[in-house]
């Protein structure tokens, strides 16, 4: 008993001394223990890895359990963020589309030398006889009645009434709408009037003028640029009505501007110094010529063997 106790004390002392020695050695910063550590680590690490691989789902479950509240908050926050980001994405998509339209429109105005005020369509009336749109720019922005309204493709209409921060535009397809036009490339004059539908009527003043499907029309321009500045593309002839003996020639015109998808327009607040003539018309897209080259390889002739018929 006594011997046991003495032995135990001795061992205790030795172990304490060894531990203290180890601590001191390790704290001195030498690499005394990197060897043993490496050995133990190389044995234990794989075990730890496999153990934690096996138990990770359980561990995660418990971790989640202890964090249910904060996880719920996190989920709520993420859902919220997601919603906001999605809304932002939709907005930015819409903005990107608008930007292209705006760029095209400003290009058109820039080429012509018009000074324009861009505006967004905020209302549209297609009922009844008058086809009008409301835009979000008014006399504040320098808009006055009888100004020309254009969009990326060409003529949209003219301003009929103005408030401080909004105006009403009579659209080209309105039945009371009339605009003097010129057949692009020629000096032939005519008048376009709305039909109340998507198409326009063209009346050429000279019955002798040759007009063909595909001919393009630009606004002739009014005195002082009001209500129409010169050179604005209006539309394209889609069919010619043969009226033998009549004083004028009639044709049907499709406007360049697709009024159904219109979103941004520009009001021309000051006309160009010089008439842009035909320069604003959309450039024709070159038709690609398809050339097909067929290379035939001579196949070895296989003489058809006559099948002997049995009689």
């Amino acid at each position: 008993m006594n011997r046991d106790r003495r032995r135990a004390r001795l061992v205790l002392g030795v172990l304490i001394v060894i531990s203290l020695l180890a601590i001191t050695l390790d704290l001195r910063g030498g690499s005394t223990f990197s060897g043993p550590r490496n050995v133990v680590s190389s044995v234990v690490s794989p075990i730890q890895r496999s153990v934690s691989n096996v138990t990770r789902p359980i561990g995660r479950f418990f971790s989640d359990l202890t964090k249910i509240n904060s996880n719920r908050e996190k989920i709520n926050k993420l859902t919220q963020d997601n919603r906001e980001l999605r809304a932002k994405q939709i907005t930015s998509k819409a903005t990107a589309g608008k930007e292209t339209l705006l760029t095209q429109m400003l290009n058109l105005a820039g080429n012509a030398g018009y000074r324009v005020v861009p505006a967004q369509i905020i209302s549209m009336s297609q009922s009844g006889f008058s086809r009008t749109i409301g835009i979000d720019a008014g006399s504040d922005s320098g808009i006055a009645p009888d100004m020309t309204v254009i969009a990326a493709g060409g003529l949209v209409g003219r301003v009929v009434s103005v408030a401080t921060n909004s105006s009403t535009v009579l659209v080209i397809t309105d039945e009371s709408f009339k605009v003097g036009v010129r057949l692009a490339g020629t000096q032939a004059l005519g008048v376009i009037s709305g039909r109340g539908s998507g198409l326009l009527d063209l009346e050429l003043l000279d019955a002798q003028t040759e007009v063909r499907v595909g001919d393009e029309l630009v606004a002739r321009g009014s005195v002082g640029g009001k209500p129409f500045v010169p050179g604005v593309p209006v539309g394209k002839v889609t069919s010619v009505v043969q009226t033998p003996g009549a004083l004028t020639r009639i044709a049907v015109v499709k406007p360049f501007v697709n009024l159904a998808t219109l979103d941004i327009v520009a009001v021309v607040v000051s006309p160009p110094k010089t008439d842009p003539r035909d320069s604003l018309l959309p450039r024709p897209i070159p038709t690609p010529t398809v050339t097909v080259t067929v290379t035939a390889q001579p196949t070895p002739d296989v003489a058809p063997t006559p099948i002997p018929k049995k009689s």
Partner: protein
Amino acid sequence: MNNPRYAKDAALVGIALLVIVFQTSVVTRISWPLNGPNLILLLFIPWVLSETPFRAALIGFLMGVFIDLAPPGNGPAGQWALVMTIVGFGLATYAESSRDLARSPLVEVGIFFLGAFALLLLWGVLGVMVGDDRASAKYFFQFIPGSLLWNMVLAPFVLPLVRKTTFVRRIRR
């Protein structure tokens, strides 16, 4: 002295290593509120309570060295070894001097609490002495109470289990 005893020792060493690995790779990876339980303490303390002081000191030293050298350990080698040697020896000496006292479940849990507290406190004090960053105010005022709380919750279930596993050691000499 005979074969079963050594077989049992080998099994216990294996269990101890497994528990250490399990503690370091599973239990500490779970983010418990208040730091969570320490299975090493739950095995070590009841185990040394049923050992002679000589063997208890040796067990503490070996387990401590393994904890010090096993991967997540980055403190000075020997820190755990020193603490566990001392606590193992102390607990075993106490258990030997008052053998029947240690067999009452309530006293057993109480001794476990004191042992665990002494071990964690000693580790922290030693850490402060050697300038270990982990022995911070957070360790003393948050980790130790939290760890003790968790261990006390588990102790009534784990201690009898460990005692039964190591019981053969009581019928010694």
